């Protein structure tokens, strides 16, 4: 119906239509929305303010007293958690774990998704339905056999149990169903003619994949990279289980969880540590929010 009407809707009429959507802003509406913003923002603001307060101030009064003069903020808590509580090491570990785990998933998923979208083979639909089913399998179900497997397997004589390699591999396995699902749906929505004419011009599947499918799918790949990055960065369970108790390899999530459970009373340190773990996701979120939202609303939903 919009096809026929679209040319008529020009200028002022379009304005009027947009206005129609924004109907009835009134005081209760604004109050409700401001209340929501306050409820959502205050806990995080509290954390941020508390992380810059001195130990004496933290013991004496709540974080909200710090937003009025005299301002007595300090970086000492960050200095402590980064340099003495092992968070700098964990910060690096988080990158070391997250980046390869993201690269692996995206590439392996892209090959599989391309096969699912543009190649004919028996069991294609069945296998893809299996992928859709695996989307929601709780990873708790896989912990015991994978732990046993990692304990028994040697790689060139080296144990991989408790290493970062084990976490890379595990995250790749766990991230794949979502990645294959997202990319296959995007590849499948690309125009068939492009691939047909490339094939007529003599381009093989590899050329079509690297020169056509990948460049045309940058938005979907960007969404996937962000999702997988945040998912691995924020993950607690996989690292907790496969890295074991040795702190040397722990990422931020595990170190923070240990700090909170063992060190609960020292709010100035715990809050600074929590903020250290949040800073990268927040930067990623604000700089790439557009792709993040597009990935979510693309109908691709991870369980």
């Amino acid at each position: 119906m919009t096809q026929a009407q679209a040319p008529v809707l020009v200028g002022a009429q379009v304005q009027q239509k947009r206005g129609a959507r924004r109907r009835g802003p009134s005081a209760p509406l604004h109050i409700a929305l401001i209340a929501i913003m306050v409820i959502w923002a205050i806990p995080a603001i509290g954390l941020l303010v508390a992380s810059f307060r001195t130990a004496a101030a933290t013991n004496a009064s709540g974080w909200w007293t710090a937003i009025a003069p005299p301002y007595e903020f300090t970086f000492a808590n960050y200095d402590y958690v980064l340099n003495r509580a092992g968070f700098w090491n964990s910060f690096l570990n988080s990158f070391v774990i997250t980046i390869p785990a993201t690269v692996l998933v995206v590439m392996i998923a892209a090959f599989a998704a391309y096969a699912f979208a543009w190649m004919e083979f028996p069991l294609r639909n069945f296998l893809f339905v299996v992928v859709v089913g695996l989307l929601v399998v709780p990873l708790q179900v896989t912990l015991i056999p994978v732990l046993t497997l990692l304990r028994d397997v040697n790689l060139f004589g080296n144990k991989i149990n408790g290493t970062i390699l084990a976490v890379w591999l595990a995250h790749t396995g766990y991230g794949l169903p979502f990645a294959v699902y997202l990319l296959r749906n995007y590849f499948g929505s690309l125009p068939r003619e492009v691939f047909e004419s490339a094939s007529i011009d003599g381009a093989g599947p590899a050329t079509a994949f690297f020169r056509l499918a990948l460049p045309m799918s940058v938005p979907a790949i960007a969404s996937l990279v962000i999702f997988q990055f945040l998912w691995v960065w924020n993950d607690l369970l996989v690292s907790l289980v496969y890295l074991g108790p040795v702190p040397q390899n722990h990422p931020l999530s595990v170190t923070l969880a240990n700090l909170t459970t063992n060190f609960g009373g020292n709010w100035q340190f715990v809050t600074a540590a929590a903020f250290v773990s949040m800073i990268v996701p927040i930067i990623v979120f604000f700089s790439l929010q557009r792709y993040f939202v597009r990935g979510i609303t693309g109908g691709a939903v991870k369980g």
Partner: protein
Amino acid sequence: MDRIISAIAVVVAVPLVLVGYILVVEFIIGRLPKRVAGGIRPWLWLAPALLFLGVFLVYPTIATIFRSFYNQSGKNLIGLDNYAWFFGQDSTLLALRNNVLWVVFLTGFVVGLGLLIAVLVDRVKYEGVVKSIVFLPMAISFVAAGVIWRLVYDIQPTVGTLNAGITATGASPYPFISTAPWNNFALIFVGVWMLTGFAMVILSAGLKGVSVELLEAARVDGANELQVFRRIVLPLLAPTIAVVATTIVIYALKTFDVVYVMTNGNFDTEVIANRMYKELFNNGQQGRSAAIAVVLLIAIIPVMVVNVRRFRQQEAVR
């Protein structure tokens, strides 16, 4: 330092190896007769993914189901004893009850609030600001969210934001974390804070897809805003709401991080996933732990069936 070097090596080497793999595969397939090539090619493109899915998801799921019928050492078959244990303990049944609370209330609040916010922000100019603020918690970890909310719920009025407010009115501070069963709702609200943005973003996108002409027509016919919402917007959004709700149900069933960080299951806040972790690592009970994981899997199977069915319908429309 060598960790960083190996990570950089991996980031460079892995793409080279994988791209090389495809190029080698295509080079070899290119020499084969066309009919044979078409038959093998898809499987070689799928091979790395199938290997990972097989090793880390399919095989372990099946192995866990078998493991759950064996005893602690894994040597003796004991039938359903691990399940009998699970359904015969007050503490595990409590975990099950708490997961039901999580499923009902996390899903209810997240979908309800997400829909409410999506509808409300659609009518104001500062839509983007509200959305960003509500959406931000989605980016951080449940562990960090746990710290943020422990600071809110703390019993000391000089630390806990909520109790500072309560004591300011003259009342005595309320132990949010340790008062069963209400503490479960304190934890669930952390999940609500985290996930409402997700629901809001999807529902808001769905809402933008509802035709303005349709809404105007209803209003011209004399429908008030509530009727427009209930009779037009809600039915049109129903499939989107279903997608969001199933996703949140999965989150609720798998809940681990928030409970692990905030209470570790103390004060009657235990959930299945945390109990499973405890049986595995604290009690060394692999058989029982496997049985708990299978219970979790069984609880999720209905959602899996719904997802597969929905996927099939979408494919039929394609």
